[in-house]
């Protein structure tokens, strides 16, 4: 494995010999710039993946931890057996209050407490709702600390029916303290006095939720739908039993329970909730983050690959020299791969650690845009390392493979020719393959009718574009950059450097192309979706007034139906349609329904019915969206077997099929059908149609006046509601943009990286420039321009490619909804500008360094 030392061919055998691994190591140390460049490229890529995993583990851990704390002391839970949804934050229907006494009578039960959980929106002293991103909980304060996850931090437990304990987070937000008078909307307003402030275990609140704890008497009166019903019974067994003990006790308790009620071991109940959160929100969250980590990794892989090929060009001569001295191809290849392995391992470990920092940053970022994530500290699981390290190492090795193969193919004579490191040849094969792939991809994308074909086409088109890019750079780069060359020496020199090796230029821009294309697809998609929803909501609503406590964020809020009824009586209101949210099992699958005043629904809402009617649905009819009808195979006259949360069953006949689902969702039933079975009597929304001659402004003011007594739910005119209902989409779009911006940062980092490698490689030229009178500023300018050119090239290509893909994707993925494509021209312009500006910034550091170079040593360098 040993090869002769490269320096000096001494005849003495005592001269130190160098092994290949040591040569690789020495190479790395000798080229600090190179190693730094490669390390940075890999670290950037792996850090994002690691950050995404750490963040979702952290959130999962803390959510699970909270849930476990919540249920820690409860050995058995007795609750309604009917399950229509496993969405976290939703409650099952009620059970008879008498159940508690039945359970108390069971031997082995140390204590059983009735639990009444319901809706309880806190309204501060000034009449403002205390908002938050989680359920607004009202409950009964349980005296047994084993059964109550809340701990009093201040004051005392509630005694009278109008006394409450509130969570410390809400207390802090609204500056509440014991003795303050507040209102709790349950949803009917309850004037209450704060007697205590509680923490959830050690934390201020359970996630983003709020808590109002009444006395049992108070909860019966205000929170329970009927005083004779409770939500569940929490049971503490004698002697702190293990799981098996809990199970046995649950079985015993089950025997005394009325039908429709179940006894569940506490540990199972907790696990059920943990799973629900893990499968629901956390799964979405994790998938979402991992998808972006994936995008970031792809972008980084291109960046790493390009960096390696730049570096390989730099060492072509060195490889040739080794070959001339008798090193075999395999040895060259092995040396290059050994180098890559060292870099891959080091950088992946660093990236894994950097990910922790990134996770902390992302968390802060989410909270900055209004998405508070629970949890303190960071969770670094072994599995994260087990994913990140191999991925980082493999991506690095694969990226290094092609350049390594190329380096090993260098003919030994190349060492003797002092050829320029950067070659400008573009193999015709490459171009032909590129054109073929691009055309094939474009055709597939244009004709695609399902996501799979679309994805295949998109990949082919992307690969094709990347392959033809050098030819395009050569063909159009000269023309496009020509106008700038007149601006001064900087842009002129940069132009020459961009055009000197179209392949390298294209390579440097690749990560940018991919990054910007993804952002563009997303931007067009989001804009189309938003536009479509906006248009639909606008057409659905008449020019009336809408009451909505929450248009986005947490769904479980609303106002008292009483307010809806009162507004109906206003002279300016022709029709008031209150809408409640709920969940049922429809033909066996869990669906979200809206229950509303459908008697004269069409006076207030234009659902664009394709068949039948959505009016007067009564207790036995349902209307469904065309989307739901298509998916479930329903048509007017079909039967939907419904199971309500309280266990009641009903057969509903489809009365109508409608197009517009942005306001009423996919399943619509009447309030009268829902009321007997609902969990909380809460109008999420009320749509008010104006009487002839009435003015929206006037009516809005009148409704607002009425609403003051109901905690001031928000009242909108049509335009206002449309805007507000898009706020959630906007927030989501923001988060996605921020995440994608990170991918763009990686791309820019790649540009900066290769630029500084290029500057290092060209130090001779830069020295010459300085020697014949280029000022430092001019050298700086030329490199900054170069990176701006590259970024602009990447950004423009990315926008074009992404725009084309999005155009097709919107059509394919929106399916039956038929959303028209809308191009956010302004946003895309900003995107390209940001890319170019980013390029300029990315060039700043390498440019500054190059400009600082010592002229004499650069001129003297060989």
């Amino acid at each position, binding site marked *: 494995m040993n090869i002769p030392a490269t320096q000096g061919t001494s005849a003495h055998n005592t001269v130190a010999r160098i092994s290949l691994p040591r040569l690789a190591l020495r190479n790395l140390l000798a080229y600090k710039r190179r190693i730094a460049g490669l390390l940075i490229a890999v670290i950037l890529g792996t850090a994002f993946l690691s950050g995404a995993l750490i963040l979702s583990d952290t959130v999962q851990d803390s959510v699970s931890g909270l849930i476990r704390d919540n249920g820690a002391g409860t050995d058995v839970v007795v609750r309604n057996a009917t399950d229509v949804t496993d969405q976290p934050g939703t409650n099952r229907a009620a059970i008879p209050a008498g159940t508690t006494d039945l359970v108390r009578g069971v031997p082995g039960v140390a204590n059983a407490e009735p639990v009444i959980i319901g809706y309880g929106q806190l309204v501060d002293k000034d009449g403002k709702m205390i908002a938050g991103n989680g359920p607004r909980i009202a409950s009964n304060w349980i005296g047994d600390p084993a059964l109550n996850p809340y701990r009093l931090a201040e004051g005392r437990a509630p005694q009278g029916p109008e006394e409450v304990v509130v969570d410390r987070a809400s207390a802090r937000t609204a500056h509440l303290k014991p003795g303050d008078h507040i209102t709790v909307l349950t949803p009917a307003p309850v004037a209450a006095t704060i007697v205590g402030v509680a923490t959830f275990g050690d934390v201020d609140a359970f996630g983003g939720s709020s808590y109002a704890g009444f006395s049992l008497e108070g909860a019966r009166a205000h929170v329970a739908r009927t005083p004779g019903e409770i939500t569940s019974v929490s049971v503490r067994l004698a002697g702190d039993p293990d799981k098996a003990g809990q199970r046995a006790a649950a079985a015993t308790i089950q025997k005394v329970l009325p039908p429709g009620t179940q006894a569940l071991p506490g540990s199972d109940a907790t696990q059920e909730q943990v799973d629900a959160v893990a499968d629901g929100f956390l799964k979405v969250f994790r998938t979402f983050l991992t998808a972006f980590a994936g995008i970031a990794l792809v972008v980084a892989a291109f960046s790493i690959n390009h960096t390696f090929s730049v570096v390989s060009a730099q060492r072509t001569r060195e490889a040739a020299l080794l070959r001339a001295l008798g090193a075999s191809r395999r040895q060259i290849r092995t040396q290059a791969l050994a180098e890559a392995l060292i870099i891959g391992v080091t950088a992946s470990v660093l990236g894994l650690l950097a990910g922790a920092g990134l996770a902390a940053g992302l968390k802060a970022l989410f909270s900055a845009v209004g998405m508070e994530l629970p949890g303190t500290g960071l969770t670094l699981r072994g599995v994260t390392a087990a994913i990140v390290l191999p991925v980082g190492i493999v991506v690095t090795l694969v990226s290094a493979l092609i350049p390594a193969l190329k380096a090993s193919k260098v003919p030994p004579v190349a060492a003797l020719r002092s050829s320029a490191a950067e070659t400008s040849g573009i193999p015709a094969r490459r171009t032909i393959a590129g054109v073929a792939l691009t055309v094939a991809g474009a055709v597939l994308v244009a004709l695609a009718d399902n996501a799979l074909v679309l994805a295949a086409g998109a990949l082919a088109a992307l690969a094709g574009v990347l392959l033809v890019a050098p030819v395009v750079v050569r063909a159009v780069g000269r023309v496009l950059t020509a106008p700038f060359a007149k601006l001064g020496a900087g842009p002129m020199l940069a132009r020459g450097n961009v055009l000197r090796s179209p392949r390298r230029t294209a390579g440097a821009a690749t990560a940018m192309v991919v990054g910007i294309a993804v952002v563009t697809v997303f931007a067009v998609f989001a804009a189309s979706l938003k536009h479509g929803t906006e248009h639909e909501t606008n057409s659905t609503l008449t020019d009336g007034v809408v009451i909505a406590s929450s248009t986005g964020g947490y769904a479980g809020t609303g106002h008292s139906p009483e307010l809806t009824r009162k507004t109906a009586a206003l002279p300016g209101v022709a029709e008031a349609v209150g809408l409640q949210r709920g969940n049922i099992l429809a033909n066996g699958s869990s669906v979200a329904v809206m229950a509303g005043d459908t008697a004269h629904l069409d006076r207030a809402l234009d659902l664009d019915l394709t068949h039948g009617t959505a009016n007067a649905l009564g207790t036995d009819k349902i209307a469904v969206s065309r989307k739901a009808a298509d998916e479930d195979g329903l048509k007017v006259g079909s039967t939907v077997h419904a199971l309500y949360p309280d266990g009641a069953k009903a057969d509903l006949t489809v009365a109508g099929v409608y197009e517009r689902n942005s306001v009423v969702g996919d399943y619509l039933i009447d309030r009268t059908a829902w009321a007997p079975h609902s969990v909380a009597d809460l109008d999420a929304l009320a749509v008010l149609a104006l009487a002839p001659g009435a003015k929206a402004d006037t009516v809005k003011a009148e409704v607002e006046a009425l609403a003051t007594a109901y905690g001031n739910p928000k009242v909108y005119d049509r335009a206002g509601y449309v805007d507000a209902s898009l706020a959630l989409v906007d927030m989501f779009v923001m988060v996605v943009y921020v995440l994608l911006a990170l991918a763009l940062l990686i791309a820019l980092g790649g540009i900066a990286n290769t630029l500084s490698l290029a500057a290092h490689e060209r130090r001779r030229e830069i020295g010459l420039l300085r020697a014949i009178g280029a000022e430092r500023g001019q050298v700086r300018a030329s490199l900054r321009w170069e990176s701006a050119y590259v970024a602009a090239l990447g950004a423009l290509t990315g926008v074009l490619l992404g725009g084309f893909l999005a155009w097709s994707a919107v059509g394919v993925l929106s399916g039956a909804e038929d959303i028209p494509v809308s191009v956010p021209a302004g946003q895309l312009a900003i995107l390209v500008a940001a890319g170019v500006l980013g390029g300029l910034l990315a060039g700043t550091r390498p440019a500054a360094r190059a400009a600082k170079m010592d002229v*004499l040593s650069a001129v003297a360098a060989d």
Partner: protein
Amino acid sequence: MSGTSPSPTARSAAAESGGRYAACTVHAVRAYGRGDTEVRALDDVTLGFPFGRFTAVMGPSGSGKSTLLHCLAGLDTLTGGQVLLGDTDLGTLSDKELTRLRRDRIGFVFQAFNLLPTLTAGENVTLPASLAKARLDPEWVDRVIGAVGLANRLGHRPSELSGGQQQRVAVARALATRPELVLADEPTGNLDSRSGAEVLGLLRDAVDTLGQTVVMVTHDPVAASYADTVVFLADGRTADRMDGPTPQAVLDRMKAFELPGKAGVRS
């Protein structure tokens, strides 16, 4: 017609330099390193380079020739003494001012790697002017380009030119701004004798017909014979000078350096 002035007359030479010399060095010292490891690349060098003359600088490897040229060009700074370009004391200039001086008042030709590979020959010639955002005198540029014989090669890139052609482009660039001083460090070192002769003829022409002042470092006695005066350096000091050199005379003088004891170190 004294081309160079050894130390005894240095003071007067410096005093008069404003009138007779395009550039001169006065007790110039350039030391590298400190203490024990100090190397004096230039050790008290006082030289004048008269207007419109072609001076060759010779000496063994490591004798300080390149250092002298770099100091004259404002690429390197002295650790003692002065370099004057016309009336300008280079030691008083900032980095930025030195850069401008190189751009506007000096033309430099290196041994190799004189051209930016991304620019055409023509663009390389006009590069200093582009950097200065200055207009070139078109007549002068035409004359220079005509003189170097590159009129039909202006659109070519350096990689498409032979070594000799590349050096001629470099000479054209050095002359294009009509600098006060043209400096060339072994400009023919990498060329075969025919190409070398072309480049040397060109420098000679620049002096004779264009009135330029040229200082050239060389190892080659034949190259030195193109100059009006040859200055010999040894160990960072001026060892000798020769007016109207012939290759044979230069060669003989060079040989003297190689004989111990006869090296013309100033006594």
